[in-house]
């Protein structure tokens, strides 16, 4: 536990992404199983021990420290776990500290009652840094500026394997990941995923920008304005995953018993309505509602019958990764498309349709079609090379996205400030940034603009909660967040500016959409924004 505590402390005080990667990689190499696996879990997705809550810690401390002094201290520090770690009355001769594995085992064994006896015994064995690390681990939120992606990248770096491959196995394994370490660190066979409904990392597109492609080699599809999902069936179980690999099955129960065979399908999740796909009386596609309607259903853990009836979800399919257990990813797009088209007969049209291919004579004609598409909820076009295999991540030249409104960028929320007037109790003014290079190679975020409009009151409440729960730093009225949320920002124009470190200033930026589903390393880079300068 001492090494883990030292790692946490070092990460707290390290700003550079590269240095964070180095620290985590070094720890993972030097630490035996299962400690390193638990540490990796704590740093990435977090561990959950239902018996240990923030309120448990508060109650434990109020039994040991005067409640008034506890509250004054907690207010000063601003963090329950840290305050408790500092105020815990340590015994004069502490017993030997536990390993991470032992601590996890003990935490797992606690229930709501025994926690009041057993957690103190564990805390007694640690010094202040150890108590901090333990309490952070136990309550599930490290909040030390390490994202799940960063932890996985550090793992890949530690053992010289590719992060995409790590992602591929990750979702089928559970902490402390013995199979993952056996494969990456000991050179054993990779984990077997065949009978597990696990997430496969998405293939992603590059922005088209100035590129012109030959339609002899590329095919065009609409980019629908829902959320990209992966529907997976294996071992008689179906799961639905968001772009970031989060399991959102519980939010869309109507999709869990409509896929009757093992498969991994890539598509756009939409809810029924009259907007999208209704254009040109296209009979092959039913209509979908606007993104707003879909938004009503996102982020819910349970769904009412009424909601299921009023806004039923379906998937508009783009691609097939596996069908009947056969891995199609190495095949060219044309071949996968054939298989997907043939598959439609086996799928109920109540819950699936096929995203149709947009026919155009040539690139100019395609540009015309794109400009002319009146449907507000079409995001633009996707251009896919006909011979492209399905490869995790963003590969040059295979897939391009050609957004309809060029003045939209994906930015990462960096700082938030309280608003004024009736918003004064909310963090409603947001500063966001773009990457100054490849985020997986140590790029940093640079602020590119500020916005305080473009969201509903409901969304403001959610954003405010996000800011409060993900604060890593405070500067007077400003909070720095852990940079885990993507905004799609709309703006009128962008100009060069010496006033900003990024060298750019946006005109009239507003939050176009909050991308709760999008991982931050997929936000845009400064170069993408620079390419939009028109003066």
């Amino acid at each position: 536990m001492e090494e883990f505590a030292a790692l946490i402390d070092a990460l707290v005080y390290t700003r550079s992404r590269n240095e964070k990667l180095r620290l985590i990689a070094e720890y993972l190499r030097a630490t035996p199983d299962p400690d390193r696996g638990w540490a990796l879990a704590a740093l990435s997705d977090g561990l959950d021990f239902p018996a240990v809550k923030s309120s448990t810690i508060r109650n434990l401390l109020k039994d040991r420290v005067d409640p008034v002094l506890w509250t004054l201290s907690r207010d000063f520090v601003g963090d329950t776990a840290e305050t408790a770690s500092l105020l815990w009355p340590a015994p004069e001769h502490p017993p030997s500290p536990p390993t991470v594995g032992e601590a996890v085992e003990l935490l797992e064994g606690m229930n709501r009652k025994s926690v009041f006896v057993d957690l103190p015994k564990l805390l007694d064995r640690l010094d202040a840094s150890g108590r901090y690390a333990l309490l952070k681990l136990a309550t599930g939120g490290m909040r030390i500026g390490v994202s799940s992606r960063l932890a996985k990248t550090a793992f890949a770096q530690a053992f010289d394997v590719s992060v995409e491959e790590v992602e591929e196995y990750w979702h089928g394994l559970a902490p402390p990941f013995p199979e993952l370490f056996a494969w990456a660190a000991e050179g054993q066979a990779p984990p077997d995923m065949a009978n597990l409904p696990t997430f496969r990392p998405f293939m992603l597109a590059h922005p088209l920008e100035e590129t012109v492609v030959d339609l002899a080699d590329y095919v065009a599809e609409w980019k629908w304005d829902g959320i990209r999902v992966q529907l997976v069936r294996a071992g008689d179980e179906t799961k639905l995953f968001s772009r970031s690999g989060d399991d959102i099955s519980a939010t869309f129960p109507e999709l869990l018993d409509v896929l009757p065979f093992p498969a991994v399908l890539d598509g756009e999740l939409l809810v029924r309505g009259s907007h999208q796909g209704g254009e040109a009386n296209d009979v092959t596609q039913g209509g979908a509602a606007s993104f707003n309607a879909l938004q009503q259903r996102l982020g819910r853990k349970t769904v009412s019958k009424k909601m299921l009836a009023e806004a039923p979800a379906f998937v508009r399919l783009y691609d097939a990764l596996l069908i009947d257990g056969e891995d199609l990813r190495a095949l060219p797009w044309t071949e996968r498309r054939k298989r997907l088209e043939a598959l439609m007969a086996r799928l109920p049209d109540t819950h699936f349709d096929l995203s149709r291919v947009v026919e155009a004579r040539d690139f100019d004609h395609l540009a015309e079609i794109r400009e002319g598409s009146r449907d507000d909820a079409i995001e633009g076009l996707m251009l896919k090379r006909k011979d492209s295999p399905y490869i995790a991540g963003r590969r040059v030249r295979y897939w391009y996205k050609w957004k309809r409104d060029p003045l939209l960028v994906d930015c990462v929320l960096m700082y938030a400030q309280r608003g004024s007037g009736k918003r004064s109790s909310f963090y409603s003014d947001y500063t966001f940034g773009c990457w100054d290079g490849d985020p997986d190679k140590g790029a940093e975020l640079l602020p590119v603009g500020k916005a305080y409009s473009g969201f509903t009151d409901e969304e403001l409440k959610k954003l405010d909660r996000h800011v409060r729960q993900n604060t890593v730093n405070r500067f007077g009225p400003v909070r720095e967040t852990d940079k885990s949320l993507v905004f799609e920002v709309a703006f009128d124009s962008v100009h060069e500016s010496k006033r900003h470190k990024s060298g750019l200033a946006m005109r009239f930026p507003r939050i176009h959409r909050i991308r709760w589903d999008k991982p931050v390393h997929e936000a845009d880079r400064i170069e993408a924004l620079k390419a939009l300068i028109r003066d």
Partner: protein
Amino acid sequence: MPAPFSWIRPEPWGIHVVPADAWVDPSRPVERALVTHGHADHARGGHGQTVATPETLAIMELRYRTGAQDEAGEIPHKAVPVEYGESITLPGDVQATYFPAGHVLGSAQILLEHAGERIVCTGDYKRRADPTCPQFEVVPCDIFITEATFGLPLFTHPPIAEEMAKLLDRLAAHPDRCVLVGAYALGKAQRVIAELRAAGHHDPIYLHGAMEKMCRLYEEHGVDLGELRLVSDHTKDDMRGSVVVSPPGALNDRWSRRLPEPITAMASGWMRVRQRARQRNVELPLIISDHADWGELTRTIEEVDPVETWITHGREDALLRWCQLHQRRARALAMVGYEDEDD
């Protein structure tokens, strides 16, 4: 007979010693000031007369040029030096005696006596040994006027040797870089340097220009700081593997670009709290304070065992609560202008 202790009146801008018309650590100019120590929130320029230890007077002279002549060639300010353990009689039959406070060079607690009543003003203080100033003495009194800068139970300053070891370990691990320590120019900087010497570090230590004069003043008062060099006189390569000391404000400043890949450290009691360290972009927090921590504050009140405790500045709510829990009479004085700058 007047009411007990009616001769002393806490006002927002200082503690008024009524019969002597003198003020302890006033934050606005007065005719007669009794100054505990040289930090800016306690010692200010512009008084008619300042009663303080010779070291504090020298510090004030350096900072405020209190010994400067006016247009007529006179020195309007009157400096009245009082050594530790020495008493001075003020008008109105008030005796003032200065005792070490262990805070910084020249820092004193002031014992005021009048009509058989004893009041001690601590200014700022700490209980630990400090190679740059004599140690705090417990002075029995009726009213004990204490600070509470680190008056929360979470503040326990670790032994300074541990913090020095942290600093030296980091230095040894990065021989091509330097460790830049942010420390307040009066007191903290010299203590860090003296403690580094005590820990066996005898290499030259590099100073930000703003530190130089105060370090020289300490040396003139017999504090050995070893070989000190100015950053401005040296190249990046000279400073590799060295300790550099600067005011906290220079840590993230353009100035630090002339240093060889500095590892940013900060010597302050606030470093106990992670967010505080992160706010300053500190990579190596050193928990070093010239103030009493919670344990020392409460132990001191128990040892002095006054009839009443008055709390000047800091986290007075928590210390008041402690006094209440321990059946001790206490009140918080609403003082203005005292900051925690000299932590």
